[in-house]
């Protein structure tokens, strides 16, 4: 009798354990699917700054292949390094910005942002004249611009010299380059989003899903640290279009601006327009009291 009970109990335990293991296996299925898209090279890839030139070459061609495979687009991904004696700065004339958001749209296209979410590194706030209080601003205005009694304030990464986002990153996946641009190694970021919590300017964006872009809309001129298509689950941000600006071009947002409100250039070049603005206009930075030392300046013309 006692033996029968023991046997029955054991049988119940075995059945229970089998059911449990099966349920667990079924629950884990999506992870298996996800892992199939991970290459070993990607998983074991070292930090950008530790890659040898050969390794980096291999990474770039792997990323190009992956883009072709996943998006059906032939792209070139380069590693574009900072130019010597260069320190970039950006200024924006609030008196003439009309809030048309063409900068945000240009950013969206240039930087291969996810189409569905209409992501952009630039957020344009419609502000009430007479106040610089951001809480009184509105990022969701939907009417002809410029509206009376309003002014417009585009905000993007300020490439701070004392950047809170860099300090908080637990794995050094984000850092400042010699030309002042704060970059992210999308293949090193662990997606903890601490930098997003630390940034006082809402400059960082997280890839909550795999970005989706039709092949014919993909900008094929890409670089590793800027506009290549980002993986799911990592942080991204404005890089002053380093793939353009490090080659003497202007940022996409500046080129798109119809009013000429944006001024970009090398702060170390005394003859640059940005230097002229900083020396002759009454410029200010956002939230100066936080001590973040932005490289992005605002000014009023009149």
């Amino acid at each position: 009798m006692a033996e029968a009970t023991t046997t029955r109990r054991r049988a119940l335990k075995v059945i229970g354990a089998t059911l449990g293991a099966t349920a667990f296996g079924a629950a884990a299925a999506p992870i298996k699917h996800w892992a199939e898209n991970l290459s070993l090279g990607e998983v074991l890839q070292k930090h950008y700054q530790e890659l040898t030139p050969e390794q980096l070459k291999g990474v770039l061609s792997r990323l190009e292949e992956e883009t072709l495979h996943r998006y059906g687009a032939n792209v070139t991904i380069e590693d574009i390094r900072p130019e010597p004696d260069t320190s970039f700065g950006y200024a924006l004339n609030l008196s003439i910005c009309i809030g048309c958001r063409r900068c945000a749209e240009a950013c969206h296209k240039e930087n291969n942002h996810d189409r569905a979410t209409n992501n952009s590194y630039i957020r344009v706030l419609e502000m009430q004249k007479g106040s610089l209080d951001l809480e009184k601003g509105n990022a969701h205005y939907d009417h002809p611009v410029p509206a009376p009694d309003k002014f417009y304030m585009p905000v993007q990464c300020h490439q701070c010299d004392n950047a809170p986002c860099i300090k908080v990153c637990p794995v050094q996946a984000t850092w400042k380059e010699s030309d002042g641009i704060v970059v992210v190694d999308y293949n090193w970021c662990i997606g903890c989003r601490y930098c997003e919590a630390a940034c006082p300017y809402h400059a960082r964006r997280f890839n909550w899903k795999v970005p989706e872009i039709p092949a014919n809309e993909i900008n094929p001129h890409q670089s590793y640290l800027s506009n290549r298509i980002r993986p799911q689950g990592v942080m991204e941000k404005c890089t002053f279009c380093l793939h353009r600006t490090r080659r003497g071009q202007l940022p996409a947002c500046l080129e798109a601006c119809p009013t000429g409100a944006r001024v970009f250039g090398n702060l170390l070049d005394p003859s640059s327009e940005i230097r002229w603005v900083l020396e002759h206009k009454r410029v200010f930075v956002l939230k100066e009291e936080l001590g973040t030392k932005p490289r992005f300046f605002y000014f009023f013309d009149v």
Partner: protein
Amino acid sequence: MKGTRDVTGTTLKKKDLALLYPRFLWQLFLNSFRGGPLFYLWMTCLTAIAVVGFGAYAHQVNEGMRITALTDHVSWGLYIANFTFGVGLAAGAVMMVIPAYLYDDHEMHDLTIIGEILAIAAIALCLCFVIVDMGRPDRLWHMMPFIGRFNWPISMLTWDVIVLNGYLLINLHVTGYLLYMRYLGRKPNPKVYVPFVFLSIGWAISIHTVTAFLYQGLGGRPFWNSALLAPRFIGSAFITGPAFVIVLLQVIRRALGLQINDRPIETLRSILRITIPVNLFMFCSELFTALYTGGHHSAALSYLMFGHEEKTALVPWIWTALAFNAGSALLVHSKVGLRGLNAACVLAFVGVWIEKGMGLIIPGFIPSTLGEFVEYIPTLTEWRITAGVWALCLLLLTLGIKAARPVLEGELAARRG
């Protein structure tokens, strides 16, 4: 197979000890599976919840975190809220240790093991919540010192990794050693564990201080950027720890038949009598500073307490928390029996859970740094994962206590053939 063949507890050699330790662990493991129908029912329920949570997590890993309610505005939510609370629970668990060792209360000595097992389970909970919050769990190794790129000492998160894992190791060592000595039927050598007990007391304060520093060091988030945050965290940790342990001791007493008298419970009650009002006082102090001053520093708090225009998602949460905290304060100070005390503990536990989560992590993001009010209401997936992690923590806790019980009672000793 129980015990050893030819050694006695007093003549064990080092080599034998090395062999015995894995056997001891194996015995503990086997023991944790033995129990009555109620035990099996409890474990089956927890396992089922954990599996549901794991399924939801697998889904999140595959789909991306878009299936959460998190956004670029509110980028941390339920997971980090629970993580923060869990660190408090782990730190508060040493409230058993302080009276026992600092004030040499011998009746508390045996029970400290229970506090330490709770600390271990709570740290496991924290680590799970950090992992489920990561966008790239496959890159966890990037955070490992020497192998990855550990941004120490600049990033507060790296400090948190160190103190949490350190705390886990200290508690594993003390618990493991004390249980093992009981198993061998030997008197524990105070030199081997007492220094670590004292270390764990200081360390417990450090884990919650560092966790507070994660938030309070961010200049761009005025709601968190307050020097009072770390003291508030410590204060509320010493609510959740004792509150949980009071209930746990009674459950253990009833379910496992361990001899535990009411004295430790009374000691913990007197701790709650201080910490619950102190925590409320600190909250009121924050409230006054923000609301009386007004301006930007009050925006998040007034949104939390009263809402902003039509947006009031957090208002019911925080008022519930305050009501629970105030109710528990009244209860622990009135002459109520164990049942009343248990009610106070549940109220205090839930009250602090809300206050630290929906009442502290979420409003840190609302309004956003550009002044936008984007609300956050967790999705079902997030609740599932959260429930799953809690179930896992309770599983670990149950197994730990179950495993420790015969050792505490001396049933499972190496000397017995």
